């Protein structure tokens, strides 16, 4: 009770209020700083410790000092300078020491030893400060209050450390701050209760109240400056830190090249949006975008140019989408858009169309021009799915369908696509398996001399009989094999087998093997051919490779090098399906071509169709003047045969002569003829 009566009767309450305010502000600031020291490490930690101790020490000291100025002992009072300064130093030093101890992992040591040191240093500060306070009267100390004050302040200080450890770096520091304030205030006023002054008779109380008030205000101001400095250091530093945290976050969630969201951010956003769909039913559309013919840009203009294109693509995408939609780069040349709140097919289609349009426009960088296109797959949530996995899968299927369509552009997901895609994926699996097991057969279609009717050789044709699907047409599986990159292997296998088969044919008969455009671009092709010839012992002069016009398109240099190498080895080249593709007479002139094969679409309309007849005639004449052999394919009737023979095609093949037959049968056919000739 003496504590309260002392507080009430012996203090100037205005000054006490000032001191309380001082204490509160000081404690809050100190706790922020204490918190920091718990999370830093190395030298920085000591710097923060110094700053904390300085701030907290000033706060405690100022609280005490101001409160003392508000104390009205009723006797004249003087202050000892040295001890007053010393008391401040004790506070700073003690708190620094206490904090350093409080950092230890061991909770007991941290709370009781660290907290204890802090508590005792508050007390030491107070009592040293009291010795500086000289009252002209009879001073008496009440030991029980002194002891009580020590116990209380140590208790509250330990509690402060304990709370602080619990709070971690949380925002709410009211509890530790309150407890620290309690440690200071309780000590002070209990300590003051322990202190009694009896005025000496005859000595008047000094009228120094005004001077004291001014002094109190000055001290409070200085102390607040110190606290303010400590706090603002902390805040400033926190701001730069949070800025750099933000920067780190930005780096973690954005694609460094294009500055749009990266795959991680996209996955996260999609997950969150699916969650919102569950809760609030907010629809959205997912678009995935794949750039067509982007790779050639890297290959021909270089990677820096490719990077600029990607940046422009990202930039254009941001223009094409609506405000707030998310654009992300989820792969090398793959982007995705989450269009929030969009649920009608029309709206989604319009957005996809904008994207296709804007990405299809020309790109220029450093004087170079690039043209690319984009395919877009679209799915809608919740119409097509409600979870990220399904949506991504369906969008992917739509994209896959869009990429394979004749007319590039966008596709909205439909369930039928799933079936088609599924079918194709299964075909891919079977084809891979067949390729691994070399599960292909070769059929041979004989070729005869149109004038004599004698065999001149045969064309090797690839056949695939899948155990599950039966016969699969080459037109169906070859494009798939090309896309999967299996064609070179399959082609090599065909070459090898065919050469081995043909090695046992009579010596005047030739072998023709088809080479796909993809194979022709493979620089290893000549090596593969030479190897097949060497392994089988089949002479190069009897081998003819059939290429198509499309293969010659736009890849001049590589193809020219390959063809020349093959020709130099004695192998002949023929141009297959002539007249159906981008026929350009300049090919015939430029590339080392020995033979033209007239496509069966012309032959089959003979002799009735005048157009086809004149084309066949023209090609035959062309062959003569360029000194190339001419073969007519797809002969089915005697009339066709007669027309062809008359117009000077050298060789013919077709059902009229023979269907494609397997290796055993063709050798029988050849041997029969040879023996007939011998007879």
């Amino acid at each position, binding site marked *: 009770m003496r504590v309260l009566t002392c507080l009430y009767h012996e203090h100037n309450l205005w000054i006490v209020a000032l001191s309380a305010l001082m204490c509160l502000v000081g404690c809050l600031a100190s706790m922020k700083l204490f918190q920091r020291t718990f999370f830093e490490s190395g030298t920085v930690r000591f710097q923060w410790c110094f700053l904390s101790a300085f701030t907290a020490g000033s706060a405690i000291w100022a609280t005490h000092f101001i409160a003392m100025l508000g104390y009205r002992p009723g006797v004249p009072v003087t202050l000892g300078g040295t001890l007053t300064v010393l008391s401040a130093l004790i506070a700073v030093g003690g708190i620094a020491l206490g904090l350093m101890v409080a950092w230890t992992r061991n909770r007991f040591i941290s709370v009781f030893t660290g907290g204890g040191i802090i508590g005792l240093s508050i007390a030491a500060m107070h009592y040293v400060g009291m010795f500086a306070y000289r009252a002209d009267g009879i001073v008496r100390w009440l030991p029980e209050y002194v002891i009580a004050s020590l116990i209380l302040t140590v208790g509250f200080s330990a509690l402060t450390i304990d709370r602080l450890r619990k709070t971690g770096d949380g925002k709410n520091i009211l509890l530790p701050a309150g407890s620290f304030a309690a440690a200071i205030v309780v000590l002070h006023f209990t300590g003051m209760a322990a202190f009694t002054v009896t005025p000496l008779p005859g000595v008047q109380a000094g009228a120094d109240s005004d001077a004291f008030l001014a002094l109190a205000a000055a001290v409070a101001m200085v102390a607040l400056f110190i606290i303010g400095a400590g706090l603002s250091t902390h805040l400033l530093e926190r701001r730069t830190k949070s800025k750099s945290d933000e920067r780190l976050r930005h780096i973690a969630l954005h694609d460094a090249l294009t500055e749009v969201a990266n795959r991680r951010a996209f996955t996260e956003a999609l997950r969150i949006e699916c969650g919102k769909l569950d809760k609030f039913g907010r629809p959205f559309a997912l678009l995935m975008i794949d750039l067509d013919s982007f790779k050639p840009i890297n290959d021909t203009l270089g990677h820096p140019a490719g990077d600029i294109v990607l940046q422009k693509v990202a930039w254009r995408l941001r223009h094409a989408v609506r405000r707030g939609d998310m654009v992300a780069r989820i792969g090398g040349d793959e982007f995705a858009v989450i269009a929030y709140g969009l649920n009608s097919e029309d709206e989604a289609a319009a957005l996809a169309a904008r994207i296709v*349009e804007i990405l299809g426009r020309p790109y220029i960088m450093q*004087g170079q021009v690039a043209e690319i296109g984009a395919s877009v797959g679209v799915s809608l949530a919740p119409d097509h799915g409600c979870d990220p996995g399904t949506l991504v899968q369906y969008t992917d299927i739509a994209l896959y369908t869009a990429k394979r369509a004749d007319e590039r552009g966008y596709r909205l997901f439909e369930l039928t696509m799933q079936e088609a895609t599924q079918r194709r994926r299964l075909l891919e699996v079977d084809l891979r398996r067949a390729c691994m097991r070399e599960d292909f057969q070769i059929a041979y279609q004989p070729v005869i001399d149109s004038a004599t009717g004698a065999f001149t050789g045969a064309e090797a044709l690839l056949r695939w009989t899948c155990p599950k699907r039966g016969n699969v047409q080459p037109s169906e599986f070859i494009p798939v094999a090309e896309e999967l990159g299996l064609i070179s292997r399959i082609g090599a296998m065909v070459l090898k087998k065919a050469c081995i088969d043909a090695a046992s044919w009579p010596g005047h008969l030739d072998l023709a093997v088809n080479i796909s455009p993809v194979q022709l671009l493979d620089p290893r092709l000549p090596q593969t051919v030479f190897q097949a010839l060497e392994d089988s012992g089949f002479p190069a002069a009897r081998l003819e490779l059939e290429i198509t016009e499309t293969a010659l398109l736009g890849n001049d240099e590589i193809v020219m090098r390959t063809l020349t190498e093959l020709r130099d080895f004695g192998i002949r080249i023929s141009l297959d399906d002539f007249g159906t593709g981008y026929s350009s007479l300049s090919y015939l002139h430029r590339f080392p071509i020995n033979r033209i094969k007239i496509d069966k679409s012309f032959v089959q309309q003979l002799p009735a169709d005048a157009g086809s007849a004149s084309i066949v005639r023209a090609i035959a004449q062309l062959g003569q003047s360029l000194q190339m052999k001419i073969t007519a394919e797809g002969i089915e009737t005697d009339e066709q045969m007669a027309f062809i023979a008359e117009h000077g095609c050298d060789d013919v093949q077709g059902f009229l002569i023979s269907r494609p037959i397997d290796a055993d049968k063709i050798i029988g056919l050849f041997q029969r003829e040879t023996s007939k000739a011998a007879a």
Partner: protein
Amino acid sequence: MNAYTSDKQFSRLLYTSALDIECCGEKPAETVRRIAEGAAEQNRLSDLTGSLLFVNGVFIQILEGPQDEVEKAFERICCDFRHVDVRLIDLINVSERLFEGWNMAFLSDDEMSSLALGDELQEIQFLAGVNASQATLQMRSLLDNHSAASKA
């Protein structure tokens, strides 16, 4: 500014595009005029010169200036949804500007223009498809004739 120090310090590009009828609502002429004004305004800031023709719903534009500015402007143009079917016809380095003083001269075949101008514009439209440099020169001389006439 350029990496190389040849005298060909400017880029000049020629492209064509079509006004997107759906975007411009009731008043295509109004939209076209706004595009032309915006372009001239922007080009003043970017040290670009050139000319913009609008004929039969088709834009034919020449842009010339420092390489990076031309590229930036073209990127802006490619981000504009008021037109479609953007076709880059020609992009070359040149030593001097052909349209010095014109931030974006604008000519169109609207109701106000004379028959002769309309014919000339159509000829340029045809030329742009077959001979870019000839089309460029024609645009330049058209500008001389036309501005002389309008000043008179």
